[in-house]
């Protein structure tokens, strides 16, 4: 996760208007979802990989590793859909009998599962494009433009900021416990982890109070009013994105 976040700040598309990237990722994702076709899914996967790697300068090896993360859920999830309890063994591609139940894969179920497999992967590649090129701070700014309530956004900012602080602390305590042999068997492991979490909670509580004090000292009046970075729209990018999406819609319409 540290990587995804680091690339968001350090990729080659960092200075492109976040709204352009957000729109591009989301529109493509929705088309991929709605089209539910092999061709569109494959195009989306290739398109997003291409943009992320070539334009965003995300290392190829790292990108491939990322794409494998959801593979496990994908395999289990789609297999569960592909394999069904069937009563007649007529149009089965594959089947087996366990006790009195007959499990099998039909043409239909396999097609459904395979379509789903690629559709989900396509959508994931859109999500990756967004998180690899757009820092969370900018995504919060977009949500502000979309009129998401201020309170929700403030909580989001705080969560994002302190996630790293708490992670450091959790890491440090975990190491401190490890070097004092706290995880040498499962019983000790539970005890140590319980202490870690309890400590983390109390620490969060204390930190929230200290933070309030510090913000009060800087004139906090109930909301996090800050200056957001300004970006310029690029007509070229907007045209490109619109053309791409139109093209995708055409292909989707042709193949479904």
């Amino acid at each position, binding site marked *: 996760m540290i990587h995804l*976040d680091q690339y968001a700040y350090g990729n080659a598309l960092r200075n492109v208007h976040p709204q352009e990237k957000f729109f591009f990722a989301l529109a493509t994702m929705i088309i991929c979802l709605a089209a539910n076709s092999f061709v569109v899914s494959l195009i989306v996967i290739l398109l997003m990989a291409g943009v992320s790697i070539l334009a965003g300068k995300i290392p190829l090896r790292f990108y491939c590793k990322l794409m494998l993360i959801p593979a496990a859920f994908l395999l289990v999830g789609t297999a569960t859909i592909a394999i069904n309890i069937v009563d007649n063994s007529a149009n089965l591609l594959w089947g087996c009998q366990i006790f009195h139940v007959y499990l099998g894969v039909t043409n239909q179920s396999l097609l459904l599962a395979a379509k789903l497999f690629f559709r989900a992967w396509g959508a994931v590649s859109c999500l990756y494009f967004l998180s690899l090129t757009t820092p969370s701070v900018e995504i919060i700014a977009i949500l502000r433009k979309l009129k998401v309530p201020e309170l929700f956004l403030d909580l989001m900012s705080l969560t994002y900021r302190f996630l790293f602080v708490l992670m450091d602390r959790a890491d440090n305590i975990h190491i401190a416990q490890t070097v004092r042999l706290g995880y040498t068997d499962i019983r000790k492991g539970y005890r140590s982890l319980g202490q870690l979490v309890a400590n983390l909670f109390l620490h969060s509580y204390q930190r929230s109070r200290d933070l309030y004090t510090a913000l009060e000292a*800087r004139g906090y009046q109930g909301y996090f009013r800050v*200056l957001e*970075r300004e970006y310029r729209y690029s007509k070229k990018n907007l045209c490109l994105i619109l053309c791409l999406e139109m093209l995708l819609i055409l292909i989707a319409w042709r193949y479904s």
Partner: protein
Amino acid sequence: MTTNILEAQQLYFSYPDGTQALAGLSVTIEKGSKVAILGPNGTGKSTFLLHLIGILKPTKGDIFFEQKKLDYRRASLQALRSRVGFVFQDPDNQLFSASVWQEVSFGPMNLGWSKEKVIEQVNLALDLTGTAHLKERPIHALSYGQKKLIAIAGVLAMAPEVIILDEPTASLDPQYTNHILKLLEEINSGGTTVIMATHDVDLAYTWADTLVVMKDGRVLKKGQPVEVFLDDEVLQASSLTKPYVLEIFQQLQRNGYFAEDIMIPRSRQQLLEIIAARGQDLINKRAVAY
């Protein structure tokens, strides 16, 4: 033309758990001065500082800002905090935003300035602290020293007349310590009053123009660095050690190594210089003798 910018009169304060942190503390802070508040851990330094911006309210006693008594109403507190900035010891407790730019703009935005003014001030503060190159970086990717600088920038951007820092150099390596001391020097020479709490006597001796020695929630002594550190009674009562520059100088002077009327050195640099000058002196004398 020394006017008091801040004043505390007979402050008493106890924490909810019963510890009495302040016990009749009175002190005045002159406008434009560089004040170091000294004392070992647990003498109420931080508690006192939090009183100066009205975060803590004394159980007895008063705070005055520009001779005006603080009345703890919302508007007065806001007015006070718009002119007195505070930098906490742990930057992770102070930085709430993930982006450097947003973080530094928080204070100025709260002051209700125009967008242009805010941008100008944020850039000014980033330049002053030498952190303009960090503008696009997320806070969590910064080192401890960088976070500390951003915390200071966030306060400087509000253009305060007084800036208060709690242990600004704790946990920093010598490079960052020097950077921050130079920065504070620069801010002060622009007319801003700088107050810091520290337990580093060497730093306080060299940097401050006024020392406030605290003990048991009270002010034991206030004065110029040399004056305070020559007062052995105060040092003993507050269990402060003498700055090494002063101690070594005094030992050499007792040996008659320097002229009686020599300026007491305030920094390692100065001490080394007067020793070197004395060496030159001896060589010259010897040259004359032959």
